């Protein structure tokens, strides 16, 4: 740990060096918070500022404040921010359209009011003679802080706690919806899936066909392409490979000598040019129930 303010009230060289390094990093990160395009980058910059601030607190002999700054703000609150950012969509960019009318003016007015109140409080505050850190931290820093927070400022602490609880309950109330339909559990979902006839999911594209590309439909046991085996997105975009062409190819195969042989005798009666298709057909039998 860097030794901080001497008894004369001067900063030591170590603290000065630490300050100037951290100051540059923190100002750069603060700029990043304002100017970053992506929301996650802005959040990252804020984390850097917070950790730098924690270092400064510790260097100024407030280890409890410094560590709690990291645990609470960086560890919990910024994590919550990131969580929400990722849920909303990480690549979502800010819109500048005003959704609430007059929002900016109200916000500006509120900000101005806060500034006036703060200026009034800070301006009227008067500080007594400094007691010195040695005196203040007589029973270690956390104990001294606890005396203040839970002794002198217990009421203020309770008020803040009540405010936070109110906010939390309000948020729950606003987002709460009454359930109008019975809850669908995993059990009902699986039963519905089985009734639907798709026990093992849809057949994979390409796997049973001649190609293993995503856009080539799987073939059923009758040699017909299964349209649902190609991703819906590809089908909607029209990027699916031509199923007719594949079907025609299979038709040509089926009309050959191989078509007359019984299904169980494929291995024995396989004509040389159909080696691949024979295997295709056999494998496609696995997906038989998908089409029925």
């Amino acid at each position: 740990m860097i030794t901080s303010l001497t008894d004369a009230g001067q900063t030591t060289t170590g603290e000065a060096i630490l300050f100037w390094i951290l100051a540059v990093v923190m100002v750069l990160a603060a700029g990043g918070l304002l100017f970053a395009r992506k929301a996650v980058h802005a959040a990252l910059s804020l984390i850097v500022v917070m950790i730098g601030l924690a270092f400064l607190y510790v260097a100024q002999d407030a280890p409890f404040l410094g560590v709690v700054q990291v645990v609470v703000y960086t560890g919990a609150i910024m994590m919550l921010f990131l969580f929400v950012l990722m849920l909303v969509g990480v690549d979502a960019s800010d819109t500048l359209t005003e959704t609430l009318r007059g929002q900016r003016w109200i916000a500006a007015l509120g900000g101005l009011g806060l500034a006036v109140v703060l200026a009034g409080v800070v301006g009227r505050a008067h500080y007594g003679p400094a007691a010195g850190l040695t005196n203040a931290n007589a029973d270690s820093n956390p104990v001294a802080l606890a005396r203040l927070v839970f002794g002198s400022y217990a009421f203020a602490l309770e008020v803040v706690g009540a405010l936070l609880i109110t906010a939390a309950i309000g948020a729950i109330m606003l987002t709460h919806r009454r359930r109008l339909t019975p809850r669908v559990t995993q059990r009902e979902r699986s039963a519905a899936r089985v009734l639907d006839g798709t026990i093992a999911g849809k057949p994979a594209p390409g796997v049973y066909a001649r190609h293993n590309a995503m856009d080539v439909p799987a073939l059923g046991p009758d040699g017909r392409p299964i349209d649902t085996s190609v991703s819906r997105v590809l089908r909607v975009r029209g990027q699916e490979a031509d199923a007719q062409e594949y079907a025609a190819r299979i038709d040509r195969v089926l009309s050959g000598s191989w078509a007359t042989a019984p299904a169980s005798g494929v291995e024995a009666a396989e004509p040389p040019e159909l080696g691949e298709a024979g295997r295709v057909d056999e494998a496609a039998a696995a997906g038989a129930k998908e089409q029925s």
Partner: protein
Amino acid sequence: MNRLLAATGNPVVADFSHDQWWVWLVKAVLLLVFLLVSVLIAIWFERRVVGRMQLRPGPNVHGPLGLLQSLADAMKLLVKEDINVRAADLLVYLVAPMVSVFCALLTYAVIPMGPEVNFFGVHTPLQLTDFPVAVLYILACTSVGVYGIVLGGWSSGSTYPLLGSVRSTAQVISYELAMGLSLVSVFIVAGSMSTSQIVDSQTRVWWFLPLIPAFILYVVSMVGETNRLPFDLPEAEGELVGGYTTEYSSMKFAWFFLAEYINMLNVSAVATTLFLGGWRAPWPISAIGDGYFNQGYWPLAWFVVKVWLLMFFFVWVRGTLLRFRYDQFMKLGWKVLIPAALVVVVIVSVSQAIAKFGTISFGVYRTWLMVFAGVVVVGAVISMFLPERKKPGAPPSAKPTAFDAFADGFPVPPLPGQVLPPSPRAARRVATPVEASVAIASGPTTTEEEPRG
């Protein structure tokens, strides 16, 4: 800082006043070496123990007992091709694994591994540093370390890693709360947040005994904190390919891997320090020779043994339990662990307040507490022998009911107590064994399987 502590009472038991810069340096380097070697051993240990639990030998080829296997794996990771994903946010993508490892390495700095010893001629505790909020510092380091996972998943620019990192954030938010609250009860009884002082407060009794609920809560949340089974949802190779590690390769993946194992060592060390008496010798040994085994370098052995017992617990849990479903996991965190932790904190603080500020004498109070604990334990034991109450509404039918396998519209197998209706193919089934026995009797040539219908 040191000067300040020297001036103000004695908030930290460990005395670092004789330390010079080279002592710090040597201690820090030794800690790094200890952690890295422990990780190599931990990987081997885990694979061997899980192997034994699954009735297979595990790695046993390279080196004696396969000890060099993890070294070989590390070398392999080092020389593998390093692939950067094109869709990645490159700076964050590169920094994330380093954040993970760096934060993981910080914890052991405040873990007391022994009392004051003669360290190359200097009288100093076996601990790099300590301050009045050391345990909070550990929590801070772990919470920043999780950013490595979260940002690694996000910056990969791919769906599965992103899902992994979203899960990781939710996991941290819900489990770190329970973890912190379970530690608070130790702070209350020990009266300090400095690690050396907490170890010092366990001279007579280790805190895991009086604070067994808090200990259980900590153990559950420490497994959640390190992303180990059954809480490895951010990684979940069955669901998310590899979670946040999916797009990482070579050394960048190795960083994450290293961080996970160091974190296991970290939480084990914290549990040892806060609940299991730290470096103190277990009871019968601690009584030998007027505390001979609590002096010098002996405590290092107890510390390491305790940490590795917890590591074994990690492996045991991994070999035993399945991964949670996500909603079950969240339910456990928010509806069980956090309320339980709050209740424990309230009970502990009330009992501590009575002991400290009450008019009742400490001896009498302790007797009452012990009587209460005894009643709870006896009640729990008795409840195990009571017959379980039958659930109303589902009386077990005396005779097996006729079972309709197609009641729901699709075939299902019978549950215990249900019998299938006679199969229409029953006649054929009776006929088959006769044929088979005839075939066997006719000669040894028919060794093939029974033909299937």
